[in-house]
């Protein structure tokens, strides 16, 4: 069971076999997606017709629109990025404020509030989406009725997508940043105050730098979760589709390998982001 206990040979073999099968299960779908981005055929399916870069570079004249010529796909990547940037900024700001609120302040109803902050994590994304959709539409109707104003930002569209994603990603940022703030040694702040620093200077020079790894980490997670979000976005999306929604639509229609190309692009970007973060993490530890 553990290295210090004897393990029969069959168990060792079974363990190795299991790890192999598990890794195959994990990576086979991703590898397949990557490989068929380069297949010289109109559909991402076997057999192999030879290597091509058409699905990245092709243009309409060749009858194959590659990723870098597909303005619709490129536009949706940009939409996803800008939504993710908004969500990240909002989530990290609110998450940091919440961390200070929950770790430093005392007020009546704190227990209820801390419970409430975790609920977005156990509400299915689809339901978050429809509740915000319905509520915002009611507010918009009310605006029109009372003031005769068209509140377009309350209708399905990117502002609602940002709010919908933010509603649960903020909870994740709050958890991450609170956890680090909890471990902070308050005597460091006392020492800085004792050395003549103002409260603002203590915050800026002592506390926030201490929180930085958590803030950067939760920002990366927020960006990624926003970029990948599907369930909530699906309910709130208007005419501008983020990448996941765009891909979903095309996958239902029977897609060309350009989806594989964009997937490969995403994998590379995720890998770069993950490696950078891990490097940072390791440096911080050492």
């Amino acid at each position, binding site marked *: 069971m*553990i290295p210090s206990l004897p393990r029969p040979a069959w168990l060792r073999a079974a363990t190795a076999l299991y790890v192999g099968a598990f890794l195959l299960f994990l990576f086979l779908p991703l590898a397949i997606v990557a490989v068929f981005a380069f297949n010289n055929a109109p559909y991402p399916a076997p057999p192999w017709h030879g290597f091509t870069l058409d699905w990245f570079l092709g243009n309409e004249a060749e009858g194959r629109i590659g990723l870098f010529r597909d303005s619709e796909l490129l536009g949706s990547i940009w939409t996803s990025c800008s939504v993710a940037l908004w969500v990240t900024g909002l989530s990290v700001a609110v998450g940091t404020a919440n961390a200070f*609120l929950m770790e430093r302040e005392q007020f009546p109803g704190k227990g209820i509030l801390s419970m409430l902050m975790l609920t977005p994590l*156990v509400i299915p994304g689809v339901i978050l989406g429809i509740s915000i959709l319905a509520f915002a539409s009611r507010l918009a109707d009310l605006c029109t009725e009372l003031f005769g104003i068209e509140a377009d930002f309350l209708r399905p569209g990117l502002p609602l997508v940002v709010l919908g994603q933010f509603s649960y990603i903020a909870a994740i940022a709050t958890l991450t940043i609170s956890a680090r703030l909890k471990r902070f040694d308050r005597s460091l702040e006392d020492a800085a105050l004792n050395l003549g620093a103002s409260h603002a200077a203590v915050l800026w020079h002592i506390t926030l730098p201490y929180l930085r790894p958590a803030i950067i980490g939760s920002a990366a997670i927020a960006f990624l979760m926003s970029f990948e979000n599907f369930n909530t976005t699906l309910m709130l999306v208007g005419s501008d589709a983020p990448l996941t929604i765009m891909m979903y639509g095309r996958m239902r229609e029977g897609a060309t390998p350009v989806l594989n190309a964009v997937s490969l692009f995403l994998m590379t970007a995720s890998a770069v982001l993950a490696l950078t973060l891990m490097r940072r993490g390791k440096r911080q530890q050492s």
Partner: protein
Amino acid sequence: MAETAAGALWYRRLVLALLLAPALLWLLALIVLPHFDLALLSFRARVAPREYVASLAQYRSFFGEPLYWHVFVRTALLSAFATALTLLVAFPIAWIIAKLARGRMSALLFVVCLIPFWVSETVRTLGWMILLRESGVLPALLVHLGITAQPVELLYHDATILVGLVYTSLLFMVVPLVGSLESLDNSLIEAAYDLGGKGWPILRTIVIPHAAPGITAGCIVVFMLTLGNYLTPTLLGGKNSLWFTEQIYAQFITRFNWEQGAAFGFLLLALSTAMVWLGLKASGQRFSDVMRRV
């Protein structure tokens, strides 16, 4: 002196108010009020254009129409099954990471397990579609190996949906499991072994009780995510998927019957909450502790 004390108090109240404002705005405007509104919406029925009355009609139609509650029960059962499968698949790898592999190897294996989940669910599902559909890689391989004469359609089965759900959920099971198994002191296992314990009794009496919080946390999160999943069942199950989130989507977006959709949403939320609550009760844990494990 009194003046500065009053000033300090005023300052503290200002800080508290400034910190409370975003939290309250977030929770009230995006969580509490929308769900309250959704509840109201589900308890009314349209009698004429722009005219509504309070009614249980939406819930009555759910129980009256077999398709609706069949899909609901089916979704719940398949989700529970997928959760159990995920636990079975994830436990050995979590054990290997936490107990068998050493040092760098263990860290490497853990990272390798996390990597696929940095990639969007859409991409992962695309991979499964290319692998499993009739013109895909696995059917072609089966023909090539002479196992089947014709390519078989591997998509659009319940088993396909389960594979996809387990795949998507693995991360959320492996992480809490590794955490709770790592905290298990090896000397407890050695002691149990030394006192005559063998594999299964040790697992049952030492390992599982110790890892119970991690197992519960993983199961709660996996069940909830599976229940609320939309992408995997619709793409891998196609028209046969009959997943409850599809019903919600259909009512809300396709049919524009928001009252019915709201009632469905509430039923799904009730089921999800009930399972979370049951899981917590069964393992005697607090909600906040469970959420921090994942």
